[in-house]
């Protein structure tokens, strides 16, 4: 009896202690993550300029508008294009670069250092750099074309190619990330496997194809999840590089939400865009993670 109350007391003191340690984080997360999510959904049912306290409840008007808003769905489609092309470009190149560095070891350090450089720049800096590096006048591609007697090349001003130019820049920035990620994956493979394969008469290429790559599959799967969830949230780079233009050709969900809320001060509708974006991202992330985990069970 006494013992039971003692353990109860102990349990209570543990709970108190846990609460003391957890409270700062919980308060901060509630105030800056949980509450804002709820508030955004609440605001999405209002008409509101964000400044005045006058908030008019307008029911589902904003949501109805969102569902029929061509600009929003163009932005979503652009996000999806970014997502797929990022995967198709970044994953294979990342694996190739990592394989090269893994095979070469220390003597390829120069390659590693230079290949890593883009990741040292912030997204804002990358956006500005390529705003000028892809410019029609004096940009890199125009200058190359001029060297061969060609005309200037307009990448960011052309509605049809601007999005692909942006995706190219995103790949430039993030390929080093996946390169390092895959290198970490390679380095976790037991070295004796390589030695055993060579002793058994396999070539380096056979070792990579038949042994190393299959062992890299879990790493690749994680990288795919990271790339997909990242692609749906891009903002900084696109906002400073193209501002979503020309037209809506490079508009993403996040840039559209920002413009509606903070340029047009249409915060009720901006909230609906943000909430819609949140729902889409959550659903896609859940589906992708489910898919990836199920595959994991089969292999």
């Amino acid at each position, binding site marked *: 009896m006494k013992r039971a109350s003692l353990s109860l007391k102990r349990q209570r003191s543990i709970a108190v202690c846990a609460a003391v340690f957890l409270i*700062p*984080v919980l308060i901060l997360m509630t105030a800056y993550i949980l509450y804002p999510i709820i508030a*955004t959904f609440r605001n999405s049912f209002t008409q509101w300029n964000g400044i005045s306290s006058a908030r008019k409840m307008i029911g589902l008007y904003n949501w109805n508008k969102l569902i029929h808003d061509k600009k929003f769905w163009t932005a979503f489609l652009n996000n999806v294009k970014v997502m797929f092309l990022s995967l198709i470009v970044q994953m294979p190149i990342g694996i190739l670069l990592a394989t090269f560095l893994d095979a070469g070891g220390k003597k390829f350090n120069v390659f590693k250092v230079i290949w890593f450089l*883009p990741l040292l720049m912030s997204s804002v800096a990358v956006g500005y750099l390529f705003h000028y590096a892809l410019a029609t006048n*004096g940009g890199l591609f125009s200058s190359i074309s001029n*060297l061969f007697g060609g005309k200037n090349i307009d990448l960011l001003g052309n509605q049809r190619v601007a999005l692909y130019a942006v995706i190219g820049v995103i790949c430039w920035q993030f390929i080093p990330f996946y390169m390092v990620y895959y290198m970490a994956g390679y380095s976790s493979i037991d070295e004796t496997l390589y030695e055993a394969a060579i002793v058994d008469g396999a070539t380096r290429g056979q070792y990579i194809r038949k042994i190393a790559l299959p062992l890299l599959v879990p790493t690749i799967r994680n990288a795919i999840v990271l790339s997909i969830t990242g692609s749906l949230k891009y*903002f*900084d780079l696109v906002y400073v590089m193209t501002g979503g233009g020309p037209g809506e050709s490079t508009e993403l969900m996040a840039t559209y939400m920002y413009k509606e809320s903070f340029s047009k001060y249409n915060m009720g509708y901006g909230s609906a865009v943000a909430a819609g974006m949140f729902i889409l991202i959550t659903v896609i992330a859940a589906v992708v993670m489910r898919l990836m985990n199920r595959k994991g069970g089969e292999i």
Partner: protein
Amino acid sequence: MSQKKQTDSLKKSKRKSLGAWIVVMILAIFWILVAFVPFLFMVVTGFKQKIETIMYGAFHMPEKFFPDNYISIVTDPQFWNYFKNSVIVLIISLVILLFISACAAYPLSRFNFKMRTPIYFMIVAAMSVPMHVTLIPVFQMTIGMGLYDTIWAMIPPNVAFATPISVFILTGFMDSIPRELEEAADIDGCGRYKRFFQVILPLSKPGLSTLAIYNGVNIWNEFIFAFTLTQSEENRTLPLALWNYQGQYSTNTAMIMACLTLSVLPMIILFIFMQDKLVKGMMAGAVKG
């Protein structure tokens, strides 16, 4: 005869592997160009005069050494003000972040209490919340608290959004610290609070330093909160310096490139002096979300 055949095929396969080797090297060098040329463009263009960037293409070398762009930025007190703001925001955010994350990770890793699983689950779920969904309410709250357009405005959201992943990583790290060490301290009459400060926190240093790099880089580069929650030049951080310089000198490519180069310089210096640690730190966030 058969031996000759064998050496032939050996020669052939050698030639084949040499060919493959050359192709691989050409691709590797091509990728060096892809990664490096934009960088070079940035640094070199910074040394050009405005007129050169208008008259000639990107590959025209500067006619004479022209450091004026760099000098005029470095001698601009406003630039150093951005820098100072960035440093203040970085240091305060990091100290608060690392301390409260370590505090939260301790009970999650060590104690058995009813709410542990739900709280842990909530923190993991928060890792995938896009910050845009919180932007308008955070903007409103910042105005309400009177922090709008001050450098303090960025600190709470910076810390809040870095918390979930930091707690997640630190909880994992603390799980790997052997419990025997604490038990020894327990026998010595050390309470739970004391044990945290005297045993767990010092042993968590490697995890904390990795997180300091990861979060430090992110906070240093943070754009959207700084952009939304401040307005006047004197309260903005370095990523916004680029924004303001671009507004001022939008046609002066050379000036912007000089500014960009200077903004990347701190990272390059870190990279030179602690390459492995920096790379490891920057990858810390790459956990399965």
